[in-house]
Structures are given as C-alpha cells and as structure tokens.
C-alpha cells in the first residue's frame, strides 16, 4: 500500500530536500519506520525511545492520530501522513 508522508520544511535537510515521500505500510508506525529506513537522520528527531517526541504531531488525512490509535492507527492506500511541530498556535 502506498502512503504519502509529508515532511516539514525545516526537516528537509535530512531528506535531501524532499518534502513528500512515498512508502509502504499498514499503520502510521510502519509508514514512519519506512521513512526512517530511507533517511535515518529523521528517526531521532521525530521519535524518542520508540515513541513520538512530545512536541511532534502526526495526522492521517488531517486527523490527529492521538484521537485514533496513535502509531497503531491503520492507513490505507493513498492516505497522506503529515508530520508537524506541535508548538504552533495559542490564544
């Protein structure tokens, strides 16, 4: 299954400038692991001890995975996984 993973602009130095990666996987965790296999520098920046760092948000087609099953959230062919910094916003 082909999943598109979108990388924030500030991390694209670790992907050789690529902003979107096509990977295989049936869960968010598998898709991210596939990304890390291609670009090992990203693993440490996005995860810590196997979990997402606390200021990293991940969305599947715009839906925060913390409202779903976290890294176990299933993904389907054509889904878009977006990685974004969590520190934005504020009133």
């Amino acid at each position: 299954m082909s999943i598109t993973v979108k990388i924030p602009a500030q991390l694209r130095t670790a992907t050789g400038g690529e902003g979107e990666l096509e990977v295989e996987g049936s869960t968010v965790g598998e898709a991210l692991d596939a990304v890390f296999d291609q670009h090992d520098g990203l693993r440490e920046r996005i995860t810590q001890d196997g979990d997402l760092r606390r200021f990293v948000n991940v969305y599947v087609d715009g839906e925060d995975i913390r409202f779903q099953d976290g890294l176990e959230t299933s993904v389907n062919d054509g889904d878009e996984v977006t990685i974004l910094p969590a520190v934005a916003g504020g009133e």
Partner: protein
Amino acid sequence: MAVRSLNCKECGAGYELGAAFFCETCFGPLEVAYDNSGMDAEEAKRKIQAGSRGIWRYSDFLPFEGERPGDPLEPGLTPLVRADRLAERLGMGEVWIKNDAANPTHSFKDRVVAVAVAKAKELGFETVACASTGNLANAVAAHAAAAGLSSYVFVPADLEEQKLLATGIYGTNLVGIRGNYDDVNRLCTELSAERPWAFVNVNLRPYYAEGSKTLAYETIEQLGWQIPDRIVGPIASGSMFTKLGRGITEWLELGLVEGELPTFCGAQAEGCSPVATAFADGTSVCKPQRPDTIAKSLAIGDPADGPYALDLARSTGGSIESVTDDEITAGIRLLAETTGIFTETAGGVTMGVLEKLARRGDIDSDERVVVYITGEGLKTLDAARESFRMHEIDPTLADFEREFAAEVVA
C-alpha cells in the same frame, strides 16, 4: 536587555533571531533569550517610569534592539482595580482585577500582536497572518491595518458573529475554516512553510509570546513594585499563563522587584480542559480534546504550552481548574455586578475558577490576589442573554407602579 538568540526550551539548542518557532533537533518550542549583563535595576525602573503610556515602556524586556518607534495602537497600561465588593461576596481578603479588555481591540491579544507585528516589520515581512479563536483575529487585522501591512486571518467559521464582524471591518482577508481551532492551527502550520508570511502565532510565536510578559510587568508596577501572592488567569494554549511567570521571574532575577513567584492558578472550561485534566491526573502530558464550550476563545484542544503551564502551577503550589458553561455565565454576572466590568466568556471561566477556589477555602484571607480578565463582554453577547429579565411596561405611571410594586414596598 539585549536580545541574543532563540533557544530551544527542551534541549537548549540556539538559533538566530529569525522567523523560526521550533527546534529542528527535537521539535521543542523556541524562546527568546536575552543578555542581561550590565543592567542596573534602579536605572531600568527609572527608564520604565519615564517611558510611553503602554507596553513600549518595557522595550528593554522585549525582543527588539533599540527603541520602538511611535505606535498608534499601543496597547497596555490597562486598569488594575481593587475589587472590594467582589472580595466581600467571596469571603476573600484582597482582590484586584486586571482589566485587559481595555486595549485597542478589547483583549490582551493587542499586547502579543503589537510585539509580533513590530517584529514582522523588522524582519522585512509585508504580510502578517494568524490562526485565531477570535480575539487574536481582531488584533491582527487592526494592527496590520495600522502598520500598513496586508493580512490573512484564519478562524473557525462558526465563531461568534461579533468577533467575525470586528475582524472583517479592518479590511483583512478573513478566512473561515470548516473545522475547530486545532484544524485551523494545523492548516496555518502547513501554510507557514508555503507562504512568505509572518504568522504571528506560528513562525513568529517566540516573539509574539513575549508580549504577554508586559501583563506581569504592569501588575508589579501598578501594585507599587510589589508581586501579588496569587494569580488567577485563563489557559487556552498556556502561553500567556507561562509568560506571566517568565515576566515576574525576569524582574526577580534582575532585582527590579523582591519577593517570590506567586501561586499560579489556571482556569479552563470543562468543555475544553486538557490542561486541567492533566493537572488532576498528575501527568505532564495534555491529552488533546475536541472542544465543546461557550468559551470559544479558550477552546484549544491541543495546547502547545500545556506542559509548561502544568509545571508553573505545580511548582508554585497552585492548581488548574475547570468550570461548566453555567458557572462561566455566572462568573460573567458576578464580575459585572460587583465591579462594573463586563467580560467575555474567557473572563467568566476565570471568575468561575476564582469562586471555586474561594469557596473551597484554598485562598487565605491575607492573600493579595490578582485576577486576569483578558477580553470584552460585547464580543460574546450570547452568554449574557439568559442572565436577566427586562421589565417591559406601557408608558404610564400606573404600569410602572404595578411592575415595581413589590420592590417599592420592600
């Protein structure tokens, strides 16, 4: 104070003073760092007292180099009023209301936006933007107009009508998103990488957040260079709450004021209480929520500064509480009846929590308490609608006497 760099609050990595907001190594939030060496406390106080009648009197503590030019919409120096009848009603000793609705666009957001827009100009941006629950939208649209910058304002499309009207009038590009604030915020985070714009609370967030420190500085100055014993304030993202702490800490460290950090009490609406829930659960992780509350200006289900707000409340012996929509409406009424100040729903949340703390006996009678009222009641009129009854009569003396018979006798 000379502004030095942007530093990651998590890992300490340093960055240049540009439009950046998160650490490329660990994703932690960036915060402005200053070089305080060589500052003389008495000289700094004299300079403040001789300064402008607003937030730019604190320029030395804001992220700019040199003096700020004149600002036609300069916010700040809002009233700090002693509320004895409120204190009496709640059985408290000394309560002060910091009425920050008394700003150019009627909320504390003028402070953060004035700082962010000035920084945007300094960095050479021609367009400013924001993700907002309403008050920020008003402020960005107005300050962009005053500064001659174009602007894009993103809000949830179902916002209170008053807040939409008080934004669009300034000639901004008002964009209503079919979704909640967290959806708006996600879109703006993505857009900030695609457009050469200064999103005040995304890529300019480290500077923007510094503006909230002026609320702390003013409180200290208005109390005659003293620190209150307890602070009660609203929490949405937790940014203002934590910056109140940062502002006081800076002045303590620099010797502008003596004492210790107040007890910090945070207020959330039950229908959007990720930080209060984490406080009650004893965790430092705020599990995101889908907001459902009349306090739309506090309806952030995924609060960026939640962990830091929790740290501040816990380390000062305070707490973070939540109140129901009915308690919010009652809180608005309580403040209006006892002080003559009409606040929006966020102020109702703060008042509701103040009442809760007082009734529970958390507040000692010798404490000096400052309550932060951050927005204007005219922006959330629906919340007032059911709170009183109008007497409708014919224009005759007889009808008036009949209507008020009971009260006249009493």
